[in-house]
């Protein structure tokens, strides 16, 4: 096995898929010659040619809408949008078409495509470069929404996404693009979409999170452990559809749940997780399901990100409060 960071693991997944499936193509702004602004597609054009991996004009609706045309004619496009905040110009194509074409045509046309983009905050970026748009896409029927938290997961989930016959929104936590290194098999493997993972079992409280926040929760768990609190950590992996079973079983055991997200908290994935918990575990609950996320303010520029960002200590603060409840 090779030690890889998330950028390398994603690149590796795409490399394998390009090799295995001639119907896979990849494009986006700067995705070809340059290999993407985060270098995630680096080397792929050189390896597979400019017909299969290429630069597109600067137009996100165009990127997604043309990919749909390819997908319904037997190809498997994997498109890159340059940042989370630049998925919005493509919103109409995603919500009105990508998610609906199968249903609209009663299964005549499937839409096997992946829309990948760097996700979330924490890199001291300009405005619109630190968005957390998962709730928009998770609220949209017909889309699967995936956010990996490790190189290993990123590779396995992306392979599943590319081989899925449904469209997948694949968000890559940019803060940990290169921050976590891990042994990753060089061969093909896949991780199922729609299944959460119990990262570490525990008994006092369930913490559900995903993406870059998994690591932050793990840091909080070190503090909790010192105080003798046993945390069960669930990495959601797939935001939609949510794996209700894993959450239910965990909360049935712990009686307490804290949801941690990077995103603003209202009308969010955190809201949904709280709703699911009361639906599934009403009688088990020993404390109110609680969410911890960004404020419902505009995401601040770097000078204010420290206030906005959920930090390990803050996660621990909420854990201990809930356990004491």
């Amino acid at each position: 096995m090779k030690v890889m960071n998330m950028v390398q693991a994603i690149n590796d997944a795409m490399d394998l898929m390009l090799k295995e499936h001639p119907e896979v193509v990849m494009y986006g702004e700067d995705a070809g010659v340059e290999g993407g602004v985060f270098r995630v597609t680096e080397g792929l054009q050189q390896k597979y040619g400019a017909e299969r991996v290429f630069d597109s004009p600067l137009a996100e609706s165009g990127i997604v809408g043309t990919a749909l045309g390819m997908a319904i004619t037997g190809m498997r496009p994997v498109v890159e949008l340059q940042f989370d905040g630049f998925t919005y110009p493509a919103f109409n194509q995603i919500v009105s078409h990508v998610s609906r074409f199968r249903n609209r045509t009663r299964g005549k046309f499937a839409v096997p495509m992946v829309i990948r983009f760097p996700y979330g905050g924490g890199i001291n970026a300009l405005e619109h470069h630190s968005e957390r748009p998962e709730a928009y896409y998770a609220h949209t029927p017909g889309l699967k929404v995936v956010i990996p938290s490790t190189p290993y997961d990123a590779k396995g989930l992306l392979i599943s996404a590319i081989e899925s016959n449904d469209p997948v929104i694949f968000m890559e936590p940019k803060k940990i693009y290169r921050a976590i290194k891990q042994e990753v098999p060089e061969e093909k493997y896949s991780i199922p979409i729609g299944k959460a993972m119990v990262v570490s079992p525990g008994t006092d409280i369930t913490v559900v999170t995903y993406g870059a926040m998994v690591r932050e929760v793990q840091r909080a768990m070190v503090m909790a452990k010192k105080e003798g609190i046993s945390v069960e950590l669930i990495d959601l992996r797939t935001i939609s559809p949510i794996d209700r079973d894993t959450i239910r079983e965990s909360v049935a055991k712990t009686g307490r749940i804290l949801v941690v997200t990077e995103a603003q908290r209202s009308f969010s994935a955190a809201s949904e997780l709280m709703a699911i918990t009361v639906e599934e575990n009403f009688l088990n609950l020993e404390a109110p399901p609680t969410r911890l996320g960004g404020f419902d303010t505009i995401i601040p520029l770097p000078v204010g990100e420290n206030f906005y960002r959920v930090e390990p200590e803050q996660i621990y603060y909420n854990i201990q409060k809930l356990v004491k409840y």
Partner: protein
Amino acid sequence: MFKKYDPLKGKIVRIIDDNGKLLKGEELPEIDNEIWVKAMEKMLFARQADLMAVSFQRQGRMFTYPPNLGQEAIATAVGMVNKEEDWFVPAFRELAGWLAKGAQLHEVFLYFKGDEKGSKFVNAPHLLPSSVPIASQLLHAAGIGYSLKYNKKPGVVYGFVGDGGTSEGDFHEALNFAGVWKAPVIFIVQNNQFAISVPRQKQSAAESLAAKGIGYGIPALHVDGNDIMAMYKAVKFAREYAEAGNGPVLIEAETFRMGAHTTSDDPTRYRTAEMEEEWSKKDPVKRLRQYLVSQKLWDEAHEEKLVEEYKEKVEFEFKKAEELYKIELNEIFDYTFEELPPHLLKQKVEYENYLHWKEGRK
């Protein structure tokens, strides 16, 4: 052809005049006259279906329907040029084209009765469904164009849009992508002078919509869309050009929607009777009829008989649509994803429980 009819010089492709007579300096397309007879039949059938659709709607047997009346020559001409390998990407006002591409009329009726089965077009693998969000479909056309090229498949894509649709960002992005990719796409703007109530001049200050091509390096033709011969000539030329690998073509087809925007629209609110009358003189069916009559290929009695036949056929197809018009709960759930995920199963089961309870209360 792009030189002879340069839209930037105000040129319009037109072959027969408003009375079906060959214009000076023009030539008829080199095809058998019999083909025009067939085209006439197709236009008449589409028109009959269209008129009856409006009346079915009035009878409350169908929901909103967008009449094609007056615009039939455009999609009919595309149907004539079309080859099986070509792809047809509709807006929503190209009935004759859908039929040429393999749509069954009852499917069309099903769709406008509000039944998803009507978008499946089971006999027409290369026909996309209507696209409601204006101009969004042109990007799909560009993508299909790339797909054909990438897979080295023959064929071209016909992407339709209205005059109003040229204002949308997706129009721009689609033409730009297709231009950069030299994708085999023929973009056809049905300029019927209005977008619902908004006249063409309020839509864009461009002198013609064909002029927009140059912004994408796409050659364009401005065509009299009510002259089926001109349309045929333009589309055929464009098809050859695109299929040969030269890239996309933009066609602005000048026409007029003689009916309402949809069955819920009242055109008297925004256009004059004079305007309607003026355009009725250019009715494409009338023009081809006059040509055929002058060639002794057509007569009134024949047409009357045909129309009677068509009425029956349309009636038959509509009845079929009415029979097929139904849905089971499953169908709502089965196509959101390839496989039903657990949360949707749960929602279905809960709903069935409710239905069961409701049944029990009666």
